[in-house]
């Protein structure tokens, strides 16, 4: 775990709701696509660890928090809109960059 990734993402979910699973699958898909190997995803289930909600100011579920790089960004929702997620995470599609 000592290895630092370029992107550290944390996904807050509450139980195994359809929205949460959708969000997780969407996230994994985008990351594989755009940040291959440079990311780490941490999934926190608030039903298990409710005390963690305070730290990242979570009020909506699901919420994706980008811990690294700074500044912290949050994306709420099931991440179904790829472009918005990428903009939110400040990841531009590789094709656009070039």
């Amino acid at each position, binding site marked *: 775990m000592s290895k630092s990734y370029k992107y550290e993402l944390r996904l*807050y979910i*509450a139980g195994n*709701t359809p*929205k949460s699973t*959708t*969000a997780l699958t969407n996230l994994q898909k985008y990351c594989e696509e755009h940040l291959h190997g440079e990311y780490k995803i941490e999934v926190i289930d*608030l*039903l298990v660890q*409710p*005390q963690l*909600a*305070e730290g990242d*100011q*979570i*009020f*909506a*579920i*699901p*919420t994706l928090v980008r811990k690294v790089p700074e*500044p*912290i*960004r*949050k*994306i*709420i*929702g*099931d*991440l*179904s*809109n790829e472009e*918005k*997620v990428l*903009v*939110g995470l400040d990841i531009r599609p590789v094709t656009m960059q070039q």
Partner: protein
Amino acid sequence: MDEITGGGFPKGRPTLICGEAGCGKTLLSLEFIVRGAIDYDESGVFIAFEEKPEELAMNVASIGFDLKKLQKDNRIKLDYVHIDRSEIEETGEYDLEGLFIRLGYAIDSIGAKRVVLDTIENLFSGLTNQGILRAELRRLFQWLKEKGVTAIITGERGEGQSLTRQGLEEYVSDCVILLDHRVINQISTRRLRIIKYRGSVHGTNEYPFMIDEDGISVLPVTSLILEKDVSTERISSGIPSLDKMLDGKGFFRGSSILVSGTAGTGKTSIAACFANAACERKERCLFFAFEESPNQIIRNMRSIDMDLQKHVNAGLLELHAARPTLQGLEQHLVVIHKQIKRFKPQVVVLDPITNLISVGSVGEVKAMLVRLIDFLMEEQITVMFTALTLNTVVSEQTDEGVSSLVDAWLLVRDIEFNGERNRGMYIMKSRGMKHSNQVREFVITDKGIDLVEVYLGPDGVLTGSAREAQKLHEQTGLALRSNALTMKDREINRKRKVLEAQIANLKTEFESVEEELNKVYIEEELIKKVTGDNREQILKMRQGEGAPDNKKGKKK
């Protein structure tokens, strides 16, 4: 507060408090939490969307709440939900389960019975998907109800007629309280109104409330009942001659007295006299001055031989000075209430009530005074108001029309006569006692206040130096008359003496005449006798020894 809601907030149900910015929503809800924790042993959760816990704690520390300590004792949990638009991106479906979980966690961790969400509308500014938000909020309130916690939700007042900007009242329908912060005549008054309260009898009026160092206090506009105990005990007005005018005993305890008069007629002096008398009786007295500062009053009263300072030192007298414009009428009323509750005086003086008019309209002042009088009567406190009447006001009405409310009304007025002004006082009314109908002259001397009977003479009512002059005049007249009388007396004496002398003279004359007459008479008798004797002797001599028996018998 509990009184007007008929027992407080609905337990186990959400209540909405809405109002404009700065009208005390946060404070009211926070007080609810803190009081719950301190007084009722119900711990509470405060979810702040606007302010950070540290800020909150700091803000309410100024009104005496120690949030940090309560937090440490696990009585209160402050939670700050930060919503920053710039950090948040929305994509797709989501819900507020996270908030629920946080709230649920907070509630469970300290076993909270009370929850405050302040201000939940911030969610709307942070999130764009209103459809989801509304649905989620509805779910939230439902969930709170299920949890059985008493919740307060605060909301900003919206534009126009709507109570809240986002129409929150649609969801929270059990109890809605509107706070209002109104500025009338440059003076702000906070008001509270219960718009809706299911299953509770509540007052529907607007109730003024205020925030001070003790937190929030609300007071009902009017007391609902007009049933008060009355006392037949009488208390002195502090001016013996005034007491004499009032059936010799003074005012009833628990009554209200109005002293009205034009400027400089000595209203404050009368009021101070009254206060002084109360203190002399070892009663407590509260003096609210709206014109002068306490020190000024004490100094001024010293000039008429009244030492209020010693009563202040003895803790019997308290002077409160405040400019009427310092705060709204309602605030004044609340302040007066609080002071009275704290100090528990038997006598209260307000000097003068007319100044309050600068803060509110006549109607408002009257309403305030009605409430004050009601309150004081309930507490069996005797109150004295002073009121300034203007020279231009012909009718003897006070500006506030309080004359019908008070039990006794003294009128002090200027009597301008002979190039000088004097004070006249009379009792306009005094319920339930015989009182003098006379105008008395009211004099303020080095020795205090006194009432002097005015001179009622052939020239009409005289006061001041005219009265003195008239008195002097009378005295001279009296002296002259008495002088004349003695002279006459002496003359009579002399006459009598003369007459007596004459009588004596005549008497002696009469005596001498009498003597003379007597002398003649005796002489005649003697002559008669002598001649008789002579005749007998002659007869005897003529008859010789004849008829001696006769002579003897005759002689006898």
